[in-house]
């Protein structure tokens, strides 16, 4: 039911298929939906491929607000082609290859203008379920019921509408499945090592959670010249996988015996790691990461979205001893400038990203992507919505 001639749909409602999450934790349902045309400042995108990120899973199985919102179109890692643009949009046009990105970049607000921040403050009332500019929705099911957005993207659909501050042009030289990785997980990890931590040559790094985000931190630390990259994960198979991304040492918390993970890391590193990254989303692991950092200068970076809303608890004296803690969204990257840099590093063969894609499925089989991730069998499963090439 593809609309082959994009310009004939401009300004009109498009009917297409989407995978809708209606009940927490239950398989997505493929349905026909209506997608409104883009309003001023918005862009309607035909999604080519998308991938599943664990944050989607967190939203999918939440039963409590604010994370639980249903019915919803999940998905926020994707690549697509611009079908039409709303009023005032000049930076992209019909036919452009673009990444929708959950992190905004308006280029005008105080944060976007500062090199120190990537937290765009143009739209202060983003509620993670509707359009940022006016709080309304562009999706409806055939009964006319509103279907909510996720993270300003919603990519598990043939067409989506995204605010232009969340749209990044990308070079068509890059393979589509690699491009889609750069719109969230992999960029987040690379950015965390590069921009947030600023890992330097010779550093020792500890990464808690070896999913796609953790492994992209490893890849980022590797190209920055870290000499030891310690991976911590409960799944022993992750070590073999991890070696491909630069992991040099592996710790399985289940096999540490009487010792805590942080004790083991402190012993291995003669005092603690220079940089610790939490890439899971559990407060207890965030504490472990902090306790594994070296006194004097140890930096802990939190990337995981805490699954249960639990607080992080840090020992005051350990903070006084020269440690720091910060969190990061999208690895501190400014989407509109930094994604292109990463794409170029991939094309120049400095960054290894191919190994992140472990599975591919068609749109029809999207629920398999969830199974694979939950079973710990995949890093990134690419879901082809429209295989153009």
């Amino acid at each position, binding site marked *: 039911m593809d609309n082959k001639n994009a310009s004939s749909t401009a300004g009109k409602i498009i009917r297409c298929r989407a995978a809708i999450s209606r009940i927490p934790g239950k398989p997505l349902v493929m349905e026909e939906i209506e997608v409104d045309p883009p309003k001023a400042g918005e862009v309607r995108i035909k999604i080519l491929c998308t991938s599943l990120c664990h944050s989607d899973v967190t939203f999918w199985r939440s039963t409590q607000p604010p994370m639980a919102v249903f019915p919803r179109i999940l998905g926020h890692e994707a690549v697509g082609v611009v079908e039409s643009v709303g009023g005032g949009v000049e930076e992209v046009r019909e036919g452009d290859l673009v990444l929708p990105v959950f992190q905004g970049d308006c280029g005008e607000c105080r*944060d976007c203008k*500062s090199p*120190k*921040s*990537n*937290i765009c*403050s143009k739209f202060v009332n983003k509620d993670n379920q509707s359009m940022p500019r006016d709080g309304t929705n562009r999706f409806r099911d055939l009964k006319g019921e509103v279907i909510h957005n996720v993270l300003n993207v919603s990519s598990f659909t043939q067409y989506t509408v995204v605010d232009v501050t969340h749209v990044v042009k990308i070079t068509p030289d890059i393979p589509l499945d690699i491009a889609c990785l750069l719109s969230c997980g992999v960029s987040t990890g690379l950015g965390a090592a590069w921009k947030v931590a600023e890992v330097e040559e010779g550093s020792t790094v500890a990464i808690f959670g070896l999913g796609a985000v953790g492994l992209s931190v490893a890849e980022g630390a590797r190209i920055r010249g870290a000499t030891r990259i310690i991976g911590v994960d409960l799944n022993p198979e992750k070590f073999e996988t991890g070696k491909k991304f630069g992991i040099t040492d592996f710790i399985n918390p289940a096999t540490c015996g009487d010792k805590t993970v942080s004790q083991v890391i402190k012993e291995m590193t*003669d*005092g603690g790691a220079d940089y610790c990254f939490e890439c899971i989303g559990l*407060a207890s692991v*965030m504490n472990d990461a902090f306790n594994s950092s070296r*006194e*004097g*200068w140890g930096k802990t970076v*939190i*990337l*995981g*979205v*805490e699954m249960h*809303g*639990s*607080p*992080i*608890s*840090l*020992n*005051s*004296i350990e*903070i*006084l*001893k*020269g*440690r*720091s*803690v*910060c*969190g*990061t*969204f999208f690895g*501190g990257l400014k989407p509109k400038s930094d994604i292109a840099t990463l794409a170029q590093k991939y094309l120049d063969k400095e960054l290894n990203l191919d190994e992140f894609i472990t599975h591919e499925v068609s749109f029809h089989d999207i629920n398999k992507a969830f199974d694979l991730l939950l079973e710990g069998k995949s890093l990134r499963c690419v879901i082809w919505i429209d295989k153009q090439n």
Partner: protein
Amino acid sequence: MDIEKPSNKTAGKPIQCRAAIATAPGEPLVIDEVIVDPPNSHEVRVRIICTSLCHSDVTFWKMKDFPAVFPRILGHEAIGVVESVGENVDGVVEGDVVIPHFLADCTECVGCRSKKGNLCSAFPFKISPWMPRDQTSRFKDLRGETIHHFVSVSSFSEYTVLDIAHVVKVDPTVPPNRACLLSCGVSTGVGAAWRTANVEVGSTVVIFGLGSIGLAVAEGARLCGATRIIGVDVISEKFEIGKRFGVTEFVNSKNCGDKSVSQIIIDMTDGGADYCFECVGLASLVQEAYACCRKGWGKTIVLGVDQPGSQLSLSSFEVLHSGKILMGSLFGGLKAKSDIPILLKRYMDKELELDKFVTHEMKFEEINSAFDLLIKGKCLRCVIWMGE
């Protein structure tokens, strides 16, 4: 300032002199005669010229349980003259004017050689009752009972023994009743703004707690070119005092009405401050400071020492979404042997102001009044002159 010529007659021998001894938690110090052993290898014996009272002395004076111990010679902010040196001491000789520093700087270990931090790994910081290298004491009372050290300094004594890792030689022409402040409190505050936070020109800074440390942060922020320095305290008089240290605006946290302090600061600063310093030592205040530093790049710096074992609790959502940084430091992130001389020079060049920190000067015999004044919040720094 008279520097007494060191007496060759005492080198290598125990010295009998006066010290102010803490004998029981919270009890006035007792000035009594003590015996101070000669310095061992890597140690120097120093005649104290001036010392000043810091709140950390009070904390461990009042405390009943370990790491508080009694009897003990407290005091860790001071300046003195080297009376004699032990073996293997380079760079410091009899007659040198030196400042002791509680945070070790051996200059050789991984921690000291790193540019990123100031924690010595050879002599890690702890509230030890002993000399750092061999865990023994150089002090005895006249009955031969051991008297304990305090953070490797113990300056409430006419003579003390210091490990070479805890001593820095300084310009002998500096006024001792000002230079002694750089041995702890003022350096900690100024360093926190300068080194730990790296406050830049035009910044907005908030300081929770306007005691000597908080005011030293203000002084440091002023020197770094901060344009707004907002002081937060529960005593309104602190604003007038604070103005002399660069504080530009004041919030009395008891007069906030329905709003939280952090909300008031967020409103005043249109989104939050660039740097927030906690200079009191309360986990709840650290949370308040974190709440009012600006998202995107705001830094919250913890300087105050809370109870051992206390935890800071932060919302994971907030940590992830805000991009704010939480950090802490000891001794303002400074490396004592290189940075104390730098700060001293800035004082001598009339950039860094130290005079305004000294609100009282007194003789050694009056030391207990310094404790009273500090506990009642009626002083900043009391400088105690040891000399005859």
